């Protein structure tokens, strides 16, 4: 039995594609067979973030049109065993795929993989319906900004009407300092408003950007906090109980340690 998870947000630029790449890779690192499907047809990005752009021959539209077999279009990632990508088409219109066709592809992939990660385009129109059609579960990505939270709220409502109940929430790009100073929405506030389960928080981390540019998902570099955050999300998807990571920077200097000791924090 495979699980298809759609990664969506409503708003653009909150980190859907980056999250798809990292969560997919992290699940594969846990020994699962994972296929990432880029459904942002016409604006494909997932292959770039994964560094697989130069190996694409066929894409999802070719599969739908019967120009190639599903297995021919899959790009297998050589760094992580069990990880594959079904790329989107770059030069086609997004209306070439109907929700029924995308559901069929997801069902077919379900026979080959344990997890199917569906990277949803921004917006709530046709592309969203195509991405959601075959999904069993959903992860809603948001950032601690009012606009992103508002769009996430809208998307949760739409997921519910598409019969995907209890989506899980990922809060991306948290800046601990700004949250502490009250300049950024805090996690509790967002979770309370959206009223769905939180599955992970990802701190804002510059290495995520540089790694995406290099075509390497951050989870492959175990040294950053964002990497750990994405691995934790993958473990929670697999059913492990992992406590939320602390966003506080561990004090390293002598003074801050002493201050910590005295204040008892």
């Amino acid at each position, binding site marked *: 039995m495979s699980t298809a998870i759609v990664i969506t947000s409503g708003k653009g630029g909150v980190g859907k594609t980056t999250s798809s790449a990292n969560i997919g890779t992290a699940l594969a690192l846990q020994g699962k067979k994972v296929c990432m499907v880029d459904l942002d047809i016409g604006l494909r990005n997932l292959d770039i973030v994964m560094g697989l752009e130069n190996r694409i021959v066929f894409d999802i539209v070719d599969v739908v049109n019967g120009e190639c077999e599903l297995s021919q279009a899959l790009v297998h990632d050589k760094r992580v065993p069990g990880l594959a990508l079904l790329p989107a088409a770059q030069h086609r219109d997004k209306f070439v795929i109907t929700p029924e066709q995308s559901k069929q592809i997801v069902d077919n992939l379900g026979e080959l993989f344990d997890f199917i990660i569906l990277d949803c385009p921004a917006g709530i129109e046709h592309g969203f319906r195509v991405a959601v059609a075959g999904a069993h579960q959903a992860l809603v990505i948001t950032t601690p900004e*009012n606009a992103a939270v*508002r*769009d996430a*709220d*809208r998307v*949760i*409502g*739409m997921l519910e009407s598409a019969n995907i109940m209890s989506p899980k929430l990922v809060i991306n790009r948290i800046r601990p300092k700004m949250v502490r100073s009250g300049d950024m929405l805090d996690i509790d506030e967002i979770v309370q*408003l*959206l*009223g769905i389960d939180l599955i992970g928080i990802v701190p804002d981390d510059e290495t995520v950007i540089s790694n995406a540019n290099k075509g390497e998902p951050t989870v492959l570099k175990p040294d950053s906090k964002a990497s750990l955050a994405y691995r934790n999300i993958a473990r929670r998807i697999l059913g492990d109980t992992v406590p939320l990571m602390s966003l506080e920077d561990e004090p390293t200097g002598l003074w801050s340690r002493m201050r910590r000791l005295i204040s008892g924090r």
Partner: protein
Amino acid sequence: MPAEETPTLKANIKPPVLVKLTKDGLLFLLDERCEFVDLIEHLKGLLFGETEAAFEGTKVKVAVDYGNRELDSGEVRDLLDVFLQKDNFVLVEWGSNTETRRTWAQTRKHLPKQNIFKGTVRAGQRLVFDGDVVVIGDVNPGGEVVASGDVYVFGKLAGVAHSGATGNRQTIIAAADFSPMQLRIASIVSRAPEENGKYLRTFMEFAYLRDDGMAVDKLKYLHWAGYQPTVPVATEEEAL
């Protein structure tokens, strides 16, 4: 003949005596079609049988409406006797098509529809109701609840609420956690007051219209606003 059978059938299903609770007391509706013997038997059973306890206690005003039944003087005496045997009954009205009955039927007809919505009203969702609505859940920013009657939110109201959407200025908007983005009552639109850039957030408050605009007050002052809540004046007691 089916045309004549229908009323008798109806009379068989409906008990011969209906008791209604009104603002002032009790209203007895006596069936006009069934046999008089059945009627008086049922009434006696109701007042002195197993359900006797329900009709005891303090003095209560009683109206009796026997519909279009034609009673001879003996029957009137028998029927009156039954009611007079109850010490706490004060007979205020007696006849066919009584005033009490008409008022009761009126209030029943004008009782606004009452809706209950369970769940969260999320951004982009707009719910429209005929009559009053109780939302059990939150109304998130960007969500909208519209009703021709009152809007009550059993949760956090952070979105837009519109009461009296068809023009009723007597309606209110109330919420347990009251921090609306915008309020509309009839055709008046108002924003929540801001303090230091943050919206007002209070608990158990309601908004209503005054002559000079919209006002917000604690829910316990609901009666000060001159607002007449729609209490169900007639409750069904047909099971009696």
